[in-house]
């Protein structure tokens, strides 16, 4: 998408694409580069120090460990794009999880009713936060800080002061604890790769037919090939038997959260990059006054961004409840919010608004999950883990701020 396109339709080659990318990185637009490099370094270090890091069991663990935070981070991307922040997303996910658990366990409702109620709770929370920010003009930092405290209290009240509500519903438990049959993993991967290739080729053909500059076939082949290889390796490892005693219970396949995250990634990326709504989100984040003059309803953009953020927080809450098989006053608490904000920023979403992708949340979420998991395997205490994650967040924010300065200096953005 961000490949350089010449105004006269001379088709860009791979070389010109690489040159364009190198230019952008030098100009301060690092994109996902820091997150990807960080991921490679972290994985290499942990694999050398702790061979158990590289087992398929641990690999599967990483996904379920990072899933809730990744989904919450996806929602935060929308709010961050506007240059706002949602500090209440963590406990908002806790409130939604508590609503889910109460309906499932205390009221005996079927899972779809509970899930719908949890998501509606997210809609209500987001509408309230967004309206306060947009209509009253209270800084989002303050509104959501109040939400952070308020929702923390609400979770406590909902779970009746510190007991925990366990979840026994099979469907909800399956989300973070069950796997796809191995064949399904391969089938979904093939469908994904073929679909991706088809979309890319069709777009290139349409653009060439209209005389517009299109990505060369070789570049498309490279992208599709990379997706196929990386996806293939992941599915292969996840399909290995990872039960200690395979005769008693077999444990293999892609965890069910993985396709959930992939679908969210695709849908939300489509919204951001291919719809008018997404375009207007970037515009408001880049220059709210220009957006207003272009006839964009800035207040409505803010409110909907907060609603999306809280809805995704509720999905994160459901995943967290599934993984823990229970909801307690700490669900969505402690480090969840900071990890989620950290994931978005580490992935390359700017805290200054106007720059960010849903993919950032996934890459950043992977970095956070790898740190958490690897440090755990190394036997470090929670204290050390917090300090390291905090440092990584600070590093990511510095990269963001520095690349902004650099971009301003070189005139690239």
């Amino acid at each position, binding site marked *: 998408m961000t490949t*350089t*396109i*010449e*105004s006269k339709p001379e088709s860009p080659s791979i070389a010109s694409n690489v040159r364009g990318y190198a230019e952008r990185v030098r*100009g301060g637009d690092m994109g996902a580069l820091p997150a990807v490099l960080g991921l490679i370094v972290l994985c290499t270090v942990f694999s050398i120090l702790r061979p158990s890091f590289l087992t398929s069991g641990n690999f599967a663990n990483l996904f379920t460990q990072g899933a809730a935070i990744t989904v919450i981070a996806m929602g935060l991307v929308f709010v961050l794009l506007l240059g706002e922040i949602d500090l209440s997303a963590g406990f908002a996910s806790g409130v939604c999880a508590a609503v889910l658990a109460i309906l499932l366990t205390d009221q005996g409702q079927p899972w779809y009713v509970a899930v719908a109620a949890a998501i509606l709770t997210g809609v209500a929370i987001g509408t309230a936060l967004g309206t306060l920010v947009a209509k009253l003009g209270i800084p989002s930092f303050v509104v959501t800080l109040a939400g952070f405290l308020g929702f923390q209290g609400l979770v406590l009240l909902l779970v009746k002061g510190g007991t925990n509500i366990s979840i026994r519903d099979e469907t909800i438990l399956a989300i973070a604890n069950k796997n796809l049959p191995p064949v399904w993993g391969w089938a979904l991967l093939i469908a994904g790769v073929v679909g991706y290739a088809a979309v890319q080729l069709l777009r290139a053909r*349409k*653009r060439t037919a*209209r005389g*517009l500059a299109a990505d060369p076939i070789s570049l498309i082949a490279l992208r599709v090939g990379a997706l196929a290889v990386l996806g293939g390796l992941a599915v292969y490892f996840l399909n290995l038997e990872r039960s200690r005693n395979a005769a008693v219970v077999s444990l293999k396949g892609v965890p069910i959260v993985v396709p959930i995250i992939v679908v969210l990634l695709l849908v939300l990326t489509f919204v951001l990059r*291919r*719809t*008018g709504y997404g*375009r*207007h989100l*970037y*515009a408001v*984040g*880049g*220059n709210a*006054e*220009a*957006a207003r*003059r*272009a*006839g*964009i309803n800035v207040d409505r953009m803010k409110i909907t961004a907060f609603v999306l953020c809280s809805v995704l927080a509720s999905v994160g809450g459901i995943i967290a409840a599934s993984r823990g098989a229970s909801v307690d006053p700490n669900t969505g608490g402690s480090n969840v919010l900071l990890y989620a904000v950290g994931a978005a920023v580490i992935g390359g979403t700017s805290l200054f608004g*106007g*720059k960010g992708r849903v993919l950032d949340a996934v890459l950043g979420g992977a970095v956070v999950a790898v740190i958490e998991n690897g440090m755990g395997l190394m036997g470090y205490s929670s204290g050390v883990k917090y300090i390291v994650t905090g440092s990584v967040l600070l590093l990511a924010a510095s990269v963001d701020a520095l690349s902004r300065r650099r*971009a301003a200096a070189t*005139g*690239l*953005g």
Partner: protein
Amino acid sequence: MTPVLELRGIDKSFGPVQVLHDVALSVHAGEVTALVGDNGAGKSTLVKCVGGIHPIDSGEYLFEGKPVQVHSPREAAALGIEIVYQDLALCDNLDIVQNMFLGREHKRGIVLDEDTMEEMAAKTLEGLSVRTVKSIRQHVSSLSGGQRQTVAIAKAVLWNSKVVILDEPTAALGVAQTAQVLELVRRLADQGLAVVLISHNMNDVFAVSDRIAALYLGRMAAQVKTSDVTHAQVVELITSGRSGDLGLTNGVPA
């Protein structure tokens, strides 16, 4: 020939302060009308009245000879009046095509029709003989001041507009870029658009305009053909409201 845009007897007050007194202005297609005046003379207020940002208190607003009411920027845009403000109102994080279509994107269903927008943007820029931008998919943040001005102007003419009002388009530009933008301004008029150029710079005014409208303390001191006046006369009109036979007598039109 009827002017595209004609104002007669426009009054505008903000509370007790009357900013515009009985202002008349006519803007013709195919011409550049320079709107000059000292700071506080009412240039910006007049332009905002034309653009529908401020409602006028009294007076006639004629568009293509017919009286119209303009209450919002959208209504002005619907008539074909586009204003390029000094701050340009571009989003740095979007590319040229995205900026040009901001708020009026072409869509197929819910999906943005990028290809059509790219074609139209390219055609518009080409029609303006803009060859200074390398790629219309580059972010606006990477453009120079003159290129940004060009994009803002191209955005204004993309919509088959009839009147384009430019608020000090050369104020922040260097010599070469100023020349580029003035050339573009001239080309807009030559293509049949009515252009209103607000400027403080007499050189710019004399370089491109066909007519000069001089405001003095909220009154239209004179509207003259550029070829009929000298530099010094215009400066006099701006600073004292009159120059020889031209202009206001004792602060009111003769």
